[in-house]
């Protein structure tokens, strides 16, 4: 009963050379058969306005200068690219480099995007920001820029995630944002996003919805990717500076997919392997996972067409991951295209392996990573194994793990043993 786009979408036959001939998305936000705008009519005009405003302002010199300035002096960019000598020695294979998004203001890559969107909101004359959040990083990053630009801010967060990522809730509150607990559905990121969209429908005139990943309706996937691509741009320069050449492989975790797209995009036409790592949760075989690209099917969720985790009737499934930021049954449409064209490869890492990698990088490099990022590291450790040291792998350390202390400790006892 699954409508398989392979059958009626000729574009699905594209291979990875397509990126040399064409840029994505098209005018309507389509990445091949994916993307687009699937929202209620109330929101359509807002999305069209947003698209035009984004196209206009993002091209102006003043917007670009202001953004650059903020990224440098406020966010702390460029973030370092760090050769992880001890981790590399430990795996005794490829050389591992870490892109240190954990050092960005608020502790993750998310702020690259929120500061861009908030600046756009300001230019558009919007006075209020809303956002959904899973791990709370996007919520904190949005609350931060809202405070910075003097805007009102509401953050929608699943009540389960509020439990899992308590410190981030407090941070948002200190930053003056109202955190709205979402009790519907799975009480995680998916439902927070549902609720944010519902709220937006009623407040669309003065409210800017700051989506936190390369998901959602057009123009969000392209806009967020463009705000995040600074990660890859810096990485490229830094690798060339530090090693004299491009890396062989890039690895990033994929929740909605923004840190991965940000890292991958500037390398899309380079001979560099791109690997996205999804959360395998309790294990793919248990069905309790968040490997949307690896084990999902085509569908429409949160305003765009992409891969989703769903049952045969098109009802969205519950995702599972120890990491709230990956615990999402959807994924950005550009990743769907990268997968189908085989330009990128998507793998998955379960909770257990992510915890092991988490532990390892704490102990070997003195860096406490976000649980999300630990998934990328875990896969990097595997990928590095049978390679030589002159094979260079860049792993996006998308965030720091302070927010995860709660899930890592039951009372005073660490679950890492």
């Amino acid at each position: 009963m699954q409508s398989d786009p392979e059958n009626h979408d000729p574009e699905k036959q594209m291979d990875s050379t397509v990126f040399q001939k064409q840029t994505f998305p098209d005018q309507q936000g389509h990445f091949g058969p994916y993307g687009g705008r699937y929202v209620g009519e109330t929101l359509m005009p807002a999305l069209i306005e947003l698209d035009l405003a984004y196209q206009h302002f993002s091209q102006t010199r003043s917007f670009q200068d202001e953004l650059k300035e903020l990224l440098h002096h406020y966010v702390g960019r460029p973030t370092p690219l760090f050769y992880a000598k001890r981790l590399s020695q430990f795996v005794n294979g490829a050389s591992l480099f870490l892109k240190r998004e954990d050092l960005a203001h608020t502790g993750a890559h998310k702020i690259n995007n929120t500061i861009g969107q908030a600046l756009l909101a300001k230019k558009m004359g919007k006075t209020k920001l809303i956002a959904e959040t899973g791990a709370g990083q996007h919520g904190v990053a949005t609350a931060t820029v809202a405070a910075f630009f003097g805007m009102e801010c509401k953050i929608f967060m699943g009540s389960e995630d509020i439990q899992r990522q308590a410190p981030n809730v407090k941070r948002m509150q200190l930053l003056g944002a109202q955190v709205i607990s979402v009790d519907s559905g799975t009480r995680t990121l998916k439902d927070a996003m549902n609720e944010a969209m519902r709220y937006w429908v009623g407040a669309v005139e003065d409210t800017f919805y700051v989506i936190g990943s390369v998901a959602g309706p057009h123009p969000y996937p392209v806009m967020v990717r463009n705000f995040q691509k600074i990660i890859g741009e810096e990485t490229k320069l830094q690798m060339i500076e530090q090693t004299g050449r491009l890396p062989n492989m890039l690895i990033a975790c994929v929740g909605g997919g923004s840190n991965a797209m940000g890292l991958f995009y500037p390398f899309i036409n380079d001979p560099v392997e791109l690997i996205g790592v999804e959360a395998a949760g309790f294990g793919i075989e248990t069905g309790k996972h968040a490997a949307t690209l690896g084990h999902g099917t085509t569908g429409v969720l949160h305003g765009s067409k992409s891969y989703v985790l769903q049952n045969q009737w098109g009802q969205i499934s519950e995702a599972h991951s120890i990491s709230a930021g990956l615990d999402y049954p959807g994924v950005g449409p550009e990743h769907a295209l990268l997968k189908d064209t085989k330009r990128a490869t998507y793998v998955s890492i379960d909770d257990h392996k992510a915890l092991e990698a988490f532990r390892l990088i704490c102990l070997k490099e003195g860096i406490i990573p976000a649980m999300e990022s630990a998934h990328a590291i875990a896969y990097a450790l595997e990928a590095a194994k049978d390679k030589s040291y002159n094979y260079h792998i860049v792993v996006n350390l998308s965030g720091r793990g302070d927010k995860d202390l709660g899930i890592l400790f039951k009372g005073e006892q660490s679950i890492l043993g």
Partner: protein
Amino acid sequence: MNRIEQTFIKLNQKREKALVGFITAGDPDIQTSLAIILEMCKAGLDILELGIPFSDPTSDGPVIQRSSLRALNKGANLSTIFELCATVRKHYDVPIVLFSYYNPMFVYGITPFYHEAIQSGADGVLIVDLPPEESGELTQGWPDDKLSIIRLVAPTTPNERMTQIVSAASGFIYLVSKTGVTGSDGLQTSVIEQNVIKLKSLTQLPICVGFGISTVEQVRQVSELADGIVIGSAFERLIETNLDDPNLPKLIGDQTAEFKKATLA
């Protein structure tokens, strides 16, 4: 001429407005749902909007969210819903509009969906999150236009865009009364009136107004402005508060009759 058109012609002649009733298919279960619908038809419902429940109804307020969840928990799916539709069709000639989010249709398959819908006696579809821009895939997959495509116009829709929307629509136009999700409070009749006037200048299609209409008095007010009134959350709220009452279908039927009365000139 399909049943939707016929209905509006008939109503027009009788100087009545259409009472469009939204019910989540399978809430609280398929059997009761059928009983409810039959009672509504008996009570004079003009058009049935049969909601296909979706796990992530982002355009809906809490009442319809909960009704969708109840239906899904009791196993409602497109297969049982087409059966339900066919059963209703056996008893009544009421036009049936299948209300859906795009994903359940898309996953079922655009073309199979079309055939099953026609087969079970449906007359139109209203796909809440499928704007004209994204409709190509659907219309290309459909062999003909026997299923009306009801389109939404919102208070935020600019004039040019209205033109574009109505030209892609058939059956009737669903005018969203306000910005907000279904079941939101408050009714601004002046806004509705303005939008109806604009739409009337753009299309011959009947205009039905929905979102947040829940009282008989509101039905009466909107009846003076538009060709039809859509009631959804009000019915679902009644279902929710009387879940254990064996008399539930009758209650909804009575409510339908009351609303219907208010649509008479």
